[in-house]
C-alpha cells in the first residue's frame, strides 16, 4: 500500500467505504438485531436474548421454510430440465442464429417481472386465455381453475426465472470444447454415454451456477406467490415481511433472515467446493 498513487487510494477509499457503510454494516446490524429482545410496541428492547431463535424452531416456521424451499426446488428443477436443452442447442447453433436466439431470450428477461406475472394472470384466469381456448375448441365445457393454485405459483416462478438458468448454463456451454464430445463419438460412444460421461461433468459448474441463480432468489419472491397463489399460505418472504413490518417484531424477522442467509451461504460454499474439485480433476471449467 505504500507505493500507491493518489488515484489508487481514492478508489479503494470510495469503494471500501461504500461497501462498509451500505454492505457490511446493514448485515451486521441485522445479525445483532436478531439477538435482541422482543417488545410488543417498540421494534425491540436493547437486551441480549435468544428468544427469537428459540421461536424459530417452532414447527410453524420450519414448515414455512420447508414449503418455500419446496417451491424453489421444484422451480429450479423445471428450469433445469427445460433450460438445459435450450442452452445446449443454442451453443451449437451457428453464429447469427445464436445471437438472434439470445436476443429473443433477453427481451422477456429485461421486461419488468410484475408485468410478466400479470401476463401469466391473464393467461391462467377462469376468463383467461387458456380457458377461453379450451372452451372454444370444446375440450372442456366449464372453465377449470388454474389461478390461485400451487401450480400457478410454480408456473409463474418458472416463467420469471428461466432466463436466470439459461444464461449461466449457456456461458458455461459456450466455452465447452466440442472436440471432446466428437472424440468420444469417434471412439464409439452412443448418445447417453457421451452425455453422462463427457458432457455432464463438463457442464456441471454451469448447472450449479444456474441452479443457485434460480433457487436463491426464488426463495424470496413472495409477491409472485401472493399474486398467483392467492396469499393463502405464507412463504418465508411473507413471514419475514409480516414480522418485520406488520408485527414490528424486528428481532424475529432478523433471526429468520439470518437463517435464510446461512442456508444461502451453505449452498454457495457447496458450489465453490464443487467447482474447485472439478477444476482439480481437470474438468475443463
Amino acid at each position, binding site marked *: 500500500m505504500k507505493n500507491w498513487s493518489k488515484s489508487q487510494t481514492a478508489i479503494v477509499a470510495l469503494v471500501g467505504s461504500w461497501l462498509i457503510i451500505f454492505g457490511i454494516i446493514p448485515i451486521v446490524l441485522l445479525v445483532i438485531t436478531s439477538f435482541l429482545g422482543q417488545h*410488543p*410496541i417498540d*421494534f425491540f428492547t436493547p437486551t441480549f436474548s435468544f428468544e427469537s431463535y428459540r421461536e424459530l424452531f417452532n*414447527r*410453524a*416456521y420450519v*414448515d*414455512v421454510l420447508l*414449503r418455500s424451499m419446496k417451491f424453489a426446488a421444484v422451480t429450479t428443477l423445471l428450469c433445469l430440465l427445460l433450460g438445459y436443452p435450450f442452452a445446449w442447442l443454442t451453443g451449437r447453433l451457428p453464429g447469427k442464429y445464436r445471437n438472434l436466439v439470445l436476443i429473443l431470450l433477453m427481451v422477456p428477461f429485461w421486461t419488468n417481472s410484475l408485468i410478466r406475472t400479470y401476463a401469466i394472470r391473464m393467461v391462467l*384466469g*377462469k*376468463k383467461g386465455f387458456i380457458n377461453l381456448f379450451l372452451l372454444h375448441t370444446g375440450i372442456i365445457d366449464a*372453465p377449470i*381453475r388454474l*389461478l*390461485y393454485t400451487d401450480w400457478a405459483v410454480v408456473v409463474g416462478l418458472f416463467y420469471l426465472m428461466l432466463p436466470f438458468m439459461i444464461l449461466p448454463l449457456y456461458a458455461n456451454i459456450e466455452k465447452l470444447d466440442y472436440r471432446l464430445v466428437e472424440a468420444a463419438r469417434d471412439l464409439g460412444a452412443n448418445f447417453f454415454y457421451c452425455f453422462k460421461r463427457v458432457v455432464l461433468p463438463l457442464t456441471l459448474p454451469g448447472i450449479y451456477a444456474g441452479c443457485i441463480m434460480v433457487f436463491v432468489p426464488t426463495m424470496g419472491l413472495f409477491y409472485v406467490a401472493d399474486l398467483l*397463489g*392467492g*396469499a*393463502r*399460505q*405464507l412463504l418465508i418472504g*411473507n*413471514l419475514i415481511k*409480516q414480522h418485520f*413490518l*406488520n*408485527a*414490528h417484531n424486528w428481532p424475529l424477522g432478523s433471526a429468520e433472515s439470518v437463517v435464510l442467509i446461512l442456508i444461502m451461504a451453505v449452498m454457495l460454499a457447496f458450489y465453490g467446493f464443487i467447482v474447485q474439485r472439478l477444476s482439480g480433476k481437470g474438468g475443463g471449467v
Partner: protein
Amino acid sequence: MKKRSILIPLILMLCWSLVAVTAGAAEKVYVYNWTEYIPEKVLAQFTEETGIEVVYSTYDSNETMYAKLKLIKKDGYDVAVPSAYYVSKMRREEMLLPLDKTLLPNIDSLDASMLDKNYDPANNYSIPYMWGSTGIGVNSDYVDPESVTSWQDLWDPRFKASLLLQDDMREVFHMALKRKGYSSNTKDPQEIKEAYLMLKELMPNVLLFNSDSPRVPYLSGEVDVGMIWNGEAWMARQENDAIRYIYPKEGVNLWVDSFVIPKAARNVDNAHSFINFMLRPEVAKMCVEEYGYATPVREALPLLDEKVRNSRIIFPEKEVIEKGEFQNDVGEALPIYQGYWEKLRSGM
C-alpha cells in the same frame, strides 16, 4: 464514438430536468388511505378550490398502515384513515396529533350518534369518514343465495377451496367468534382460542385472501362465495347483478374508518383543510355514490340518489345493525389474535 459522448450529457440533462420538475414547491397534503376510498374527482375538486396538491398513497390493511406510520418519525403522512380499533391503539401509543376543532367547522354536519365513541372519547384525535359492514358475497349464477345465510354455511365442505376471505385478522375472527356466540371484541384468551380452532377447520375451504379489491375475483369468475365488504359488493353489482350481498344470521361485522393526523405530519393546516372538505355533504355524497359505503355525514343523506339511499347494502336496517357488532379496541389482547392469525396463515 460521437454518439456515445453525447449520450452522457443528455442523460444528465434529463435527470436534472426531471428533478427540477419534481421539486415544485406547491402546497401539498400527503394522504394515506385504503385503496378505492376517495374518488379522483373529489381530490381534483379539493386541489382546484384550495390550490393544495394531494399526494395520495394507499394501503390494503390496517397493519400495513400502522407499520409504515411507526417507521416514519418525521416528514410523514399528513392524513391517515385507520379503523376504529387502530385509532385507539395509535392514540394510546401517542402516534397521533390532537385535532384542532376550530379548523373543522363541518363536524356539525355529522350524525351525533357516530361521535364520542369509546375508541376516541370526544373525538379529540379522529373524525369518522365512512362506515360499513363485512358480510357474505355470493354469485347467484353459481351458488344459491338462499343456501348461504349464515357464517356457518361458509364452513360447508362443498365450498372446498372456493372461498374468498378478507386479508384482515379481526374480520376473519369475527366470523368464528359470532358463530360461537361471543363478542367479536372479546379479550378473553379462551374464547379467542376457540375461535382459532374453529377457523382452522375453515382453512381448507379458502381459495384466496384479498383485501385490495375483493370484488374483482367475484367479477372475473374465480370466486363465487366468500366474505366481502358491502361497498365492494355494491360496486360489483353495477357490473354484474348476479352478485349478492348477504347479512349473516349470526351478525354482520360493522366497522368505522376515521381520519387522523399522524404525529410526523408536516402540513398540519392542510391536513385540517382536507378533512374539513371531506366532511362537506356534497363531497360525502360523491363518495357514497362511488363506492357504496355509508357516510356519517347526516346532511348528505337527503342529497343522495334515491337508489343509493334505499339500498339495503349501503344502509342496513336497524335490526341488522343491532344484531351485528361494531369493531372496537381489544387492547392487550391484540397480540393473542395476531399469534393465532399467523398460525392460520402459515398453514398450522
